């Protein structure tokens, strides 16, 4: 039983509960938010420091919750979940700090803070849960807070439909996923993820595995989001407030890929084998499609900056999917790396997009005009940094993940068609080129050229913004320059899960 | 006596009652149709009771209860019809539309 892990998961929840007390003022609410998320991050860092590399779970807690249902309160982390846990805690803390100065109108800041704290609990819980139903529970916890964040604090006009699209899509996905979980339990008699992973599908016929993988995969794929189930994502991102976008892209999407790595692939190996080519194919299509849409958006006067970043997420997650679909440790490591890298970079990009939107009152590329280097040079530089990191420049966080994923595709796991995967690899390679094209196009469009469009507010990066963004920039560099630090943590766990040595 | 005769009678009664319930507009007539159905039940029960030579006479006992139920229902039903009639001056079910959902969205 690990109190620390539970505390990490519960800290935001406690913070949210604290906010419910009567008489909490506006300022106090924001401070509570920072405090709670900081506590979670401190806990996560403590866990990371105390983490012993290697196979198996650490910091496990396993208590029976609802025996009739077979539900256990089973928490624990390994090398796969730890980085995501830390990432989540970090991003949420940054969001909390960001919110100290910056909460869009729409409702009380108390509610705003409480909602993203709840969101954090859900995410942290998802990464720490080792029981299928518990996983599902935490998976669902994020829905309502996110819905309200978009619905209440989003950009007027779009937020209503976008919030509903988000929640209904993801709920449908997770409901189907639940069916898959229950199917697994019906056949094996347990919800325990560790035990199920150890069994590697023993006790489930091929048909059951295929069916369960289909159900679970579908649910997770909506969350990832995998093309063609991604349509909720651009709308949600565009409408969401900055904090929402950051958390959505940086944290929520990871729950999908994490679920695939943690549950779908190890628990249902035969199902995974059957569906891996499709997963890879959809992933690759996502990469290309995301890039193409971004290119199109750049030309469209009504193209929205946040929408561009959202579609770039679809592309990045395509890489993660491709990595997972290789069913090799390299590929999965790559997918995890993509997750981390994407979390950092896209988080940064959405912060930047939010900053731009705040300054100019719009995020439409057509109205923003260019010349950011001239008007707000530091902001422009950061945008360029983010874009370059996003396109996967070596030395930055985005690079290693894509490389590993493609490396995995070069030599896919046993039973998978090598020819097919190499074709995917080729197309993904094309995708990287396209990605580079639109991100560089974006930089040119925004940062270079003569100033035009909306009158600029003229304020460059402020102190608070710097506080928030610096960690992201730094970590992007760290992850890009010393990938081994991360891989050393993930690799043993991945190999353990994949059943290899 | 052969069991079939009362059963056929019961089915006929029940059928007529069911038709009445489904087809009549007037609440009183619907009530009467329901009574018809209940009496079909009684015929059935008594016939089966005799046929089975049930030592507990469950069928007859149930018949008594059905009679009571029928009486209570008719009493309550008439009271309700009367109340509606006082308020609306009609006892035709299709005319009672105040609570129904309207085409252009509900109330």
């Amino acid at each position, binding site marked *: 039983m690990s109190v620390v892990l539970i505390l990490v998961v519960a800290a935001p929840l406690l913070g949210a509960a604290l906010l419910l007390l009567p008489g909490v003022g506006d300022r106090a609410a924001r401070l509570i938010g920072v405090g709670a998320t900081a506590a979670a991050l401190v806990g996560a860092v403590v866990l990371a420091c105390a983490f012993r590399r290697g196979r198996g779970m650490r910091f496990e807690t396993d208590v029976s919750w609802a025996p009739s249902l077979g539900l256990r309160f089973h928490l624990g982390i390994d090398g796969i979940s730890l980085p995501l846990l830390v990432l989540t805690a970090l991003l949420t803390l940054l969001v909390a700090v960001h919110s100290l100065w910056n909460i869009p109108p729409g409702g009380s800041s108390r509610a705003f803070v409480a909602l993203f704290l709840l969101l954090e609990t859900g995410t942290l819980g998802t990464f720490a849960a080792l029981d299928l139903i518990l996983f599902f529970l935490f998976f669902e916890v994020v829905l309502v807070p996110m819905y309200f964040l978009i619905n209440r604090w989003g950009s007027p006009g779009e937020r209503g439909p976008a919030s509903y699209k988000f929640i209904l899509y993801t709920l449908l996905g997770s409901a189907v996923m639940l069916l898959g979980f229950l199917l697994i339990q019906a056949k094996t008699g347990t919800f325990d993820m560790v035990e199920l992973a150890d069994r590697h599908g023993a006790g489930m016929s091929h048909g059951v595995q295929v069916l369960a993988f289909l159900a679970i995969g579908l649910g997770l794929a909506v969350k990832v989001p995998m093309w063609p189930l991604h349509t909720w994502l651009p709308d949600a991102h565009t409408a969401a407030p900055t904090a929402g976008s950051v958390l959505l892209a940086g944290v929520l999407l990871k729950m999908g890929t994490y679920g695939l790595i943690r549950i779908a692939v190890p628990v249902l190996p035969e199902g995974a084998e059957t569906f891996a080519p499709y997963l890879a194919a959809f992933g690759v299509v996502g990469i290309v499609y995301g890039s193409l849409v971004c290119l199109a958006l750049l030309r469209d006067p009504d193209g929205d900056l946040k929408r561009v970043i959202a579609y770039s997420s679809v592309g990045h997650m395509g890489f993660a999917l491709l990595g997972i679909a290789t069913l090799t440790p390299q590929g999965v490591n790559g997918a995890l790396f993509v997750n981390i890298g994407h979390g950092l970079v896209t988080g940064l990009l959405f912060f930047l997009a939010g900053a731009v939107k705040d300054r100019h009152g719009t995020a439409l590329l057509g109205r923003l005009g260019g010349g950011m280097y001239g008007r707000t040079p530091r902001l422009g530089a950061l945008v360029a940094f983010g874009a370059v990191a996003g396109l996967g420049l070596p030395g930055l966080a985005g690079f290693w993940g894509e490389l590993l994923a493609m490396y995995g595709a070069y030599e896919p796991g046993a039973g998978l068609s090598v020819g097919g995967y190499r074709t995917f690899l080729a197309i993904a390679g094309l995708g990287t080129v396209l990605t580079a094209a639109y991100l560089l196009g974006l930089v040119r469009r925004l940062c270079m050229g003569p100033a035009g469009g909306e009158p600029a507010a003229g304020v460059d990066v402020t102190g608070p913004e710097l506080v928030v963004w610096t960690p992201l920039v730094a970590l992007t560099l760290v992850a890009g320059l010393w990938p081994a630090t991360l891989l050393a943590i993930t690799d043993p766990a991945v190999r353990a899960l994949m059943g290899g040595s | 006596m052969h069991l079939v005769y009362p059963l056929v009678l019961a089915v006929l009664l029940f059928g007529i009652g069911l038709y009445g319930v489904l087809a009549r507009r007037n609440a009183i007539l619907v009530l009467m149709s329901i009574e018809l159905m209940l009496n079909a039940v009684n015929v059935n029960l008594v016939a089966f009771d005799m046929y089975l030579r049930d030592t507990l006479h469950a069928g007859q006992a149930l018949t*008594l209860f059905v009679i009571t139920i029928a*009486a*209570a229902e*008719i*009493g309550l039903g*008439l009271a309700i019809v*009367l109340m509606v009639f006082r308020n609306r001056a009609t006892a035709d079910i299709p005319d009672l539309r105040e609570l129904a959902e309207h085409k252009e969205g509900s109330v």
Partner: protein
Amino acid sequence: MEGYYGTYALVGLVLLVASAFVAVAFVGGRLLRPSVPTHEKLTTYECGVDPVGVGWAQVHIRYYLYAYLYVIFAVDAIYLFPWATVFDAPGFGATTLVEMFVFVGFLATGLLYAWRKGVLAWT
């Protein structure tokens, strides 16, 4: 003419005889009596003056309440008969009696209720 159906067959026969008696009386009457209908004879009788309004007047609702009372009590009272025939048989006894008292008590309460609510008083 034995057994359950026999009993009621006889009852049916009696019914038949009674109907025959009435029929004979009616037919006989038709043979004996005169028939000279006039307008005055066929007018509704209201003590000799011309009738006012139609014959079917509105009847006071109170009669319906009596009917209601009757339906409830008479139907409930039916339960007394099967019980009455067995309540002192071996195996029953005081408990059965108490049960029936409970039943009768409920009936009495109903009556009390109707009374207190003024159903039985005319105003």
